């Protein structure tokens, strides 16, 4: 050692100190703020929000968060897709859980779908944006493979510290709840993009419509089988939508070719039988299926992401579309496993419209019978108990019913749903006077404010399937 040099032991000690100090500080901060719920999630939990400031910044870009949130959600509709779904559908988490994920791959979507299917009350409709990416990127695969978030992620990961600092700022600033991502993390696309976007959009086109890798068909076949299993076990409808394309792109033959190829692959992989996937092409390349809203450039955030106005139109079109069996793709309510059995599906008279009226006791019509067995009809009926007054009933054609929970003036809640008797009876029922509160929710009830639900149904139903509701004097939905 030369005289001018520091002692090696002192040098090493200083180095160890300088290394340990930031690590300890980060661990302390992250343990305190607990951004990923390492301890109790005392400040923050991953939430079922469309733009979750924490979830989207995680190494798996929010797949785990969406899986958790979808498993906890009670929404009857599950929207799965990429940032186009994330941005384009908006959505109230209680009505339609938007699990759109920026750059989400089919593998990510399947994980979320599988988690949602395990719920006591699984979604009735899976609306899946046609995937442009099947395999997850390697970075995300690594995160998934190592079982993110592990303890080291929670304590030391750069993103954990980043989010913890933001949470600390919010907490010290007086707001215990963090704001949405766009407030402080990632600037969201502006309604009107500057011209620079136009050039970059070319790259977007190339990426968005890039054909899948060689084993795409194989992958899709496996994915289809998985979705089919979900359909068989829950009776849910699964719809794959090729989302609208920006009007400027409609003239691009490359985009058209790739969309056609993708649709072709999807249709080939969609399977057959009752639980086949319904592939709906709303890209706009087929003139007759163009959505007017999607043709207005003002309804686009950029040339890849449409605004919620287009998303609402997509939803309306999907709900109005017919599936392979000729049934409407509405919020069909089928009991778990019902799809396995043949059902009488009498054609509905075109004039039939659902009517809402007070439902008196509906013993044994749907839901659980007196011995607590599930007699079918859907989650609403499951918790029906005979002999309790105060329910509501809607009447309408097959497929026009909807699910939802209404609360009567007496404080009790009821289920809006369609009877399993189909059009022979055409009674879409509100599943009777039900229990309310945590017990009912524990049985899989959808806790929806009734008025919001009815508004949503009206807004999203197709004209031919619109639901009319008559006011009922003694049982008003709660506002």
């Amino acid at each position, binding site marked *: 050692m030369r005289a001018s040099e520091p002692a090696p032991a002192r040098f090493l000690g200083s180095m160890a100190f300088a290394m340990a100090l930031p690590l300890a500080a980060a661990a302390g901060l992250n343990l305190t703020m607990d951004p990923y719920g390492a301890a109790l999630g005392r400040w923050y939990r991953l939430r079922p929000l469309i733009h979750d400031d924490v979830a989207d910044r995680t190494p798996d870009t929010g797949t785990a968060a969406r899986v958790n949130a979808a498993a906890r959600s009670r929404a009857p509709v599950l929207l799965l897709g990429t940032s186009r779904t994330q941005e384009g559908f908006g959505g109230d988490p209680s009505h339609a859980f938007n699990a759109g994920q920026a750059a989400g791959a089919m593998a990510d979507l399947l994980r979320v779908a599988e988690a949602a299917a395990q719920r006591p009350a699984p979604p009735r409709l899976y609306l899946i944006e046609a995937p442009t990416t099947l395999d997850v990127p390697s970075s995300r695969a690594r995160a998934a493979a190592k079982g993110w978030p592990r303890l080291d992620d929670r304590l030391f990961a750069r993103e954990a510290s980043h989010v913890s600092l933001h949470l600390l700022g919010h907490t010290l600033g007086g707001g215990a709840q963090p704001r949405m991502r766009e407030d402080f993390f990632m600037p969201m696309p502006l309604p009107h993009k500057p011209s*620079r976007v136009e*050039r970059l959009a070319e790259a977007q086109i190339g990426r968005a419509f890039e054909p899948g890798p060689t084993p795409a068909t194989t992958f899709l076949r496996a994915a289809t089988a998985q979705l089919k299993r979900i359909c068989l076990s829950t009776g849910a409808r699964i719809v794959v939508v090729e989302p609208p394309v920006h009007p400027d792109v409609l003239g691009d033959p490359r985009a058209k070719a790739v969309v056609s190829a993708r649709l072709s692959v999807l249709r080939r992989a969609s399977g057959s039988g009752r639980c086949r996937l319904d592939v709906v092409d709303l890209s706009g390349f087929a003139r007759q299926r163009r959505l007017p809203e999607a043709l207005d450039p003002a309804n686009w955030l950029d040339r890849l992401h449409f605004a919620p106005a287009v998303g609402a139109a997509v939803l309306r079109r999907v709900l109005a579309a017919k599936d392979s069996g000729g049934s409407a793709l509405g919020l069909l309510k089928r009991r778990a496993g019902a799809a396995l059995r043949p059902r009488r599906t009498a054609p509905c008279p075109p004039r039939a419209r659902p009517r809402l009226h007070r439902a008196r006791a509906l013993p044994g019509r749907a839901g659980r019978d007196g011995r607590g067995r599930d007699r079918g009809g859907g989650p609403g009926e499951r918790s029906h108990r005979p002999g309790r007054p105060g329910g509501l009933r809607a009447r309408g054609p097959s497929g026009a019913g909807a699910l939802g929970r209404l609360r009567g003036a007496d404080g009790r809640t009821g289920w809006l749903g369609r009877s399993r008797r189909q059009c022979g009876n055409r009674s879409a029922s509100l599943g009777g006077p039900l229990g309310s509160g945590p017990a009912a929710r524990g049985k899989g009830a959808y806790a929806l404010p009734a008025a919001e639900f009815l508004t949503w149904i009206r807004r999203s139903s197709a004209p031919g399937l619109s639901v009319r509701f008559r006011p009922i004097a003694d049982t008003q939905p709660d506002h």
Partner: protein
Amino acid sequence: MLTYDARFIALFYPLLLLLFWMAGRRSPGAAVSILLAASAVFYALADTAHAPLIAATTILNFAIGLALTRASDRRAGHWTAAGIVLNVACLAFYKYWSAPGLSPGTTPAAGVIQTGLPLGLSFFILKQISWFSDIRTARPGPLGARDLPRFALYSIFFPQMIAGPVYRFRDAAADYATLGKKPLGLSSLAVGLSVFAVGLAKKLLLADPLGTVASPVFDAVAAGHDPGLAEAWIGAWAYSLQLYFDFSGISDMALGIGLTVGLRLPINFYSPFKARRGSEFFDRWHISLVIFVRTYLFSPILRLVRRHASGTAAVRTMKATATATLVSLTLVGWWHGAKATFVLSGLLAGLGSVALQLAAFRQASTKRRGGARTPSSVSRVLLMLAVIGFGILFRSQDLRAAGEMLLGLAGLSGAAGSTALLPALGQLAGESAFHLATPVPGGGLLVMAAATAIAFGAPNTVQIFRLYDHPGAPQPEGGARTGAHLPHVRWALAAGLFVALALMQAVNGDLQGTIYARF
């Protein structure tokens, strides 16, 4: 697991050091065994499928080397040729025939021979070629040719298996021969850890964020996007810096790990962006490969051509130099991979170097006649343009994409103008400057600015720690002393901070991979 993986930083390396230094005090002779076992475990963890191949090749090469040392001169030549051909064939099989487009370690097909490029095979094979050449020259010199563990350790020493540096056997032999025979001081450990920390910071805190700037642009161009002027320059410059910091970071990590266990690995980089002309750049960039090529390729070709060429001595030398340069650099380009962009870059580098040699000859004669030399600033700008151009060739998916990027640099591809740059700069505080399909993050642009300043202005690892006694290092500047040097204690604080930040980045899980491990 690679050397910048969180598991390596937090577990593997500390445990190895603990074991090595504890064992070193009791039985220094165990050093080779410990390092060999660690290297084997490291490779098995990093690329399990190809570990048997590397082990078998190592043993086979040792056997050939042993036979070579015992053979007559003529037979030794045959053994040397056989060994080299065998190894080059192995490299060609995996690199150009088996799975030229695959990343190392990927094994798309199972079988007796695992396909996919084995991790670090290119660097491993270069060391084997060096072994055959040097053992023949020095035979039966004291190179430890009969010591299988030391040869195996030389072949698979784990920090070098990722991306070098290429260690000629003639340089390595003495160090490996004395490994475990002389005690190591704490000073060596301190310097080694500091160098490792600097390399880690280069890789994880500079190169990886630079990748988030370069990759979106190159990926978009590969997908058919016509890059604008600003996009092309940002993407190309970010990649040039990424390549430098990634590769030099990995090299520094290897250097540091070597020092902590008593091995002086070769210097690979010496501030190449500070070079004033092309020839100087080659003395500063991937120095160990340049030395290897000069020793085992350039010089033999030079001698051969000069012997058989016609003309005066000066003309023959000129012809020989040009031929040797062109062939060597073309082969170096080909060594990087089977892609047309690699081969073209090698060929262009060769042609450019020949042109520079001719220019230097002409300049020398002009100078003799009192003519003016090319200003240093002009040659530096031209050199940087060449670096950016070669970076584009290396990074681009194919020749079309490379052409688009080069046109983009000239503002001839897509919409001209710098409209994309200004909003990006305006959103530096945000996370995403473009937040589209080419999401160049604002933070990445800041890192790019910092990396540019470091590349042009900061001292390098050799200068800071005075590693002038390592193979490949230049002569000390300003009469500086050689031998590892512990700088001021603030470097210790900086190194500790680098490790902590790098560890947080590594734990984050979004590592970019090593560029040179793909070659």
